[in-house]
């Protein structure tokens, strides 16, 4: 299927190359996915989108509260943004499948972020249940984005089960601790045949840049933006960091060396006299 959506290109060694993020059947020019949780006011949502250029936003499925109409996130997310509902609250594959089917019925597309959490201290995702839900939902035509621990073996199984991407965590949700699982993320990025979206734990824009420099295809950021004193400016910082990291990855850094290599010529110093 040909991907639809916005196009982005980059000049690489003088040649213009397409550099879209392809998820399911959609192309995205932005590699920054954003979450809508924990904002002090929903009025930030459109501002975050504008400042960050994010084209995909996560939402959760919950019982409607007629007394709090402002909780209805679809009234705040501008048209044209791709909605990524999550299955938060699910503790089993079966519950995740139920939430996913409900989410699709909303009519906002086929994307689903599988989130099955059974560890309530560190909010760690349950790989076994996530894999089972992914297999079922991929067969039903969902574009499945599973949130997982950074386990390269699980990633391969999810790929085989039809996941549209994998979303390994960098550190526990909302911890803002950065790329604590760096080595595992590198292994996943190296081996994965589907896009790798680093999700959870990113705390600062530099963490996002680092993940992108490593070769992650995208990052998903929520708390780092919503908990900032100025969420709008922070979302802009993340947009720039993600782009900087992506360019840094594509440009391919030179090799590290154990010793100094002078940047300026070591000849032609003023006042030097040539030996007889």
């Amino acid at each position, binding site marked *: 299927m040909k991907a639809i959506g916005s196009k982005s290109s980059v000049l690489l060694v003088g040649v213009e190359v397409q550099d879209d993020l392809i998820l399911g059947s959609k192309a995205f020019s932005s590699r920054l996915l954003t*979450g*809508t*949780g*924990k*904002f002090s006011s*929903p009025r930030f949502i459109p501002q975050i989108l504008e400042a960050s250029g994010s084209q995909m936003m*996560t*939402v*959760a*499925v*919950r*019982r*409607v509260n*007629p007394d709090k109409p402002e*909780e*209805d*996130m*679809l*009234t705040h997310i501008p048209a044209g943004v791709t*909605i990524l*509902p*999550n299955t*938060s609250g699910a503790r089993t594959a079966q519950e995740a499948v139920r939430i996913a*089917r*409900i*989410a699709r*019925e*909303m*009519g*906002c597309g086929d994307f689903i972020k599988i989130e099955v959490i059974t560890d309530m201290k560190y909010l760690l995702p349950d790989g076994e249940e996530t894999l089972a839900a992914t297999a079922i939902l991929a067969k039903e035509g969902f574009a499945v984005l599973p949130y997982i621990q950074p386990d390269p073996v699980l990633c391969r199984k999810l790929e085989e089960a039809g996941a549209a991407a994998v979303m390994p965590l960098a550190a526990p*949700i*909302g911890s803002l601790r950065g790329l604590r699982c760096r080595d595992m993320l590198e292994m996943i990025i190296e081996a994965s045949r589907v896009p790798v979206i680093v999700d*959870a734990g990113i705390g600062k824009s530099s963490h996002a840049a680092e993940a992108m420099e490593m070769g992650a295809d995208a990052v*998903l950021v*929520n*708390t780092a933006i919503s908990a900032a004193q100025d969420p709008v400016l922070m979302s802009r910082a993340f947009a720039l960091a993600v782009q900087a990291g992506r360019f840094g990855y594509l440009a391919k850094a030179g090799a590290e060396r154990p010793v100094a290599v002078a940047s300026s010529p070591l000849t032609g110093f003023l006042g030097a006299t040539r030996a007889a």
Partner: protein
Amino acid sequence: MINLLLNGEKESRLAGSVLDLLTEKRLAPERVVVELNGSIVKRPQWQETILREGDRLEIVCFVGGG
């Protein structure tokens, strides 16, 4: 009068359709999904689906989440 379990809470009301209930609750039809006794009721079926004694209803929407 019939008794329902609406989003986990008991509610007594006059018999009517799913659509009647949503209209009464002032819920935007394009931004909610309805599950009746564990099965999704698709939007075109809201008007013809009449609520009965003991029905369990879940009415959900998208809220903020990561």
